[in-house]
């Protein structure tokens, strides 16, 4: 358990012990080959998207009617779309949107989830039962249905709105994880000890308990990025997410059903990139789980 090293002492664990803990985790992560491969692919993808204007000579939004639905060629490796725009370029710019939505959504979800989980787990009693009923309620809504209603609710979804909506619909798992680890940690000796010394709640939470709940949060966050990317693309595919002309991997697929017998590349390539990103992130998440929680190690070969 990640917490055991710190459990020995009062206050923050000795630096050396902690570092070796993380070093061990890093070592385990490196040994997880799919995860390192995933990290490489995702890193390359993120870099390409970030450097889109340098990589591509084309404008992602400017319409060129003379180039409608051109098949893949040297000039346009993935072909062009129904408005004559280079698909590869739009995929790179779309990646910026899709990847940012993934990261930012998780930031929102983790922040809310940690806050709720902390309050519920640390203080218990009525805040706990109220918050947990809220979690139950949020879990009981079919998420996609709710997303669609919000999509209709906000005229013209912008990146910010999507991030907030997705984030507010996906914090519950983190909240449960954090609460569970608070419940198991708050009566442990090192926490009691800190309390005896007169440490305030905030200090106990921030310095003693939270760092020890970090491992499951990190894993949940990583997998959360993947599911946020899929959620955004699904919403945009349905026409309720990121609005054109701004490309996102999801909204580029929106017209695929009506175009796929004319220009199948329009349906294939953006989806391929969603898949690449998501599978990489899932592998990274798996690697992190093995690295941070040795109990979970399933491959040692």
């Amino acid at each position: 358990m990640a917490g055991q090293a710190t459990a020995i002492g009062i206050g923050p664990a000795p630096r050396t012990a902690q570092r070796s803990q993380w070093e061990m985790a890093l070592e385990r992560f490196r040994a997880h080959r799919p995860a390192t491969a995933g990290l490489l692919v995702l890193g390359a993808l993120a870099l390409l998207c970030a450097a889109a204007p340098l990589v591509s000579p084309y404008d992602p939004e400017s319409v060129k009617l003379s180039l409608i639905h051109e098949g893949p060629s040297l000039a346009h490796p993935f072909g062009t779309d129904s408005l004559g725009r280079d698909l590869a370029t739009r995929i790179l710019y779309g990646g910026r949107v899709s990847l940012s939505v993934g990261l930012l959504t998780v930031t929102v979800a983790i922040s809310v989830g940690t806050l709720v989980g902390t309050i519920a787990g640390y203080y218990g009693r009525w805040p706990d039962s109220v918050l947990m009923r809220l979690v139950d309620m949020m879990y009981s809504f079919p998420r996609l249905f709710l997303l669609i209603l919000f999509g209709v609710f906000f005229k013209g979804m912008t990146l910010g709105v999507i991030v907030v909506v997705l984030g507010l619909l996906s914090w519950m798992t983190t909240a449960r994880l954090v609460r569970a680890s608070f419940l198991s940690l708050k009566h442990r000796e090192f926490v009691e000890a800190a309390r005896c010394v007169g440490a305030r709640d905030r200090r106990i939470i921030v310095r003693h308990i939270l760092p020890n709940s970090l491992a499951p949060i990190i894993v949940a966050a990583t997998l959360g990025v993947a599911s946020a990317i899929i959620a955004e693309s699904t919403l945009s595919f349905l026409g309720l997410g990121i609005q054109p002309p701004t490309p996102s991997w999801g909204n580029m697929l929106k017209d695929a059903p009506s175009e796929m017998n004319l220009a199948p590349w329009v349906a294939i390539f953006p989806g391929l990139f969603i898949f690449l990103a998501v599978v990489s992130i899932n592998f990274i998440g798996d690697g992190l789980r093995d690295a941070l929680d040795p109990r979970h190690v399933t491959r040692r070969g």
Partner: protein
Amino acid sequence: MGRYVARRLLQAVPLLLGITLATFLILKAVPGGPLAAYEADPSVTPEDLARLEHAFGLDRPIPEQYLEWLGRFLTGDWGYSLATHLPVLRMIGDRLPNTVYLMGTVYLVTLLIAVPIGVLTAVRQYSWFDHLVTGATFMAFSTPTFWLGLLLIIVFGLNLRLFPLGGMGTLGSAFDVGDRLRHLVLPVATLSLVGIGHYVRYLRASMLETIGQDYMRTARAKGLMARIVIGRHAFKNAAIPLVTVAALDLPELFVGALVTEQIFGWPGMGRLFWDAATRSDYPILMGILTVASTLVIFANLLADVVYGYLDPRIRYS
């Protein structure tokens, strides 16, 4: 156990009330509304719109609208669609069998494929088969369903022309099992693949955990045949979490898969919800969301009860 179930059921009541209220408020907060459909008619005047607003009860205070809806809902009157003027219960009733038919098949196919694969990968841990399956499951649940559906249509529908592009069956011809099955293949494949990915991973992990337990080593040490050990002891215990996961997935059987239904033109609950959402057909939306939430709550309860029943170590009080 009986008292536990009763308590949980009692807790579900305020939860459901909260859900319906929240849903209602969200629906009412959405700008626009069902009268947008009348925009297309050139002869509709402002007076017509005001009259319709009143006729559908849209001009009354929101708390009043909610209480009236709730009162009727509890007595079995779920209201009428604002678009088709049909009873909500009838419209849901028309679509529900189609969704159960699709999702039931998906559920069955998923379990039938996932269980043996999951057990095998665990038994043959670190074999090439295990590595292959593990890699494949990752890919399976990393694929956006809608994209997978599109790909299957392009390859098997448009290019190879092996399967129809959508719908539940060919019209005009008499009922034909083969035809029905052909229409089922692509949507079921789309939905099952992702599910299989999840279930295999789940089962593999819990099998490995069980196999590593002391009593398993004891069983093996006692000289029991590997097949018996796996079959009688390991799988039985590893299946407990699987059963609860399967129970949690039960609501999908009724709620359906919106995006897949959309892509394949399957006349199920998902499409009904989508159509209702895009034209702000409140009574339908309220009906579907309430049913869906109720199912989730009961599936949770069912999962807990089944878990307690199968695993004697768990005791509810």
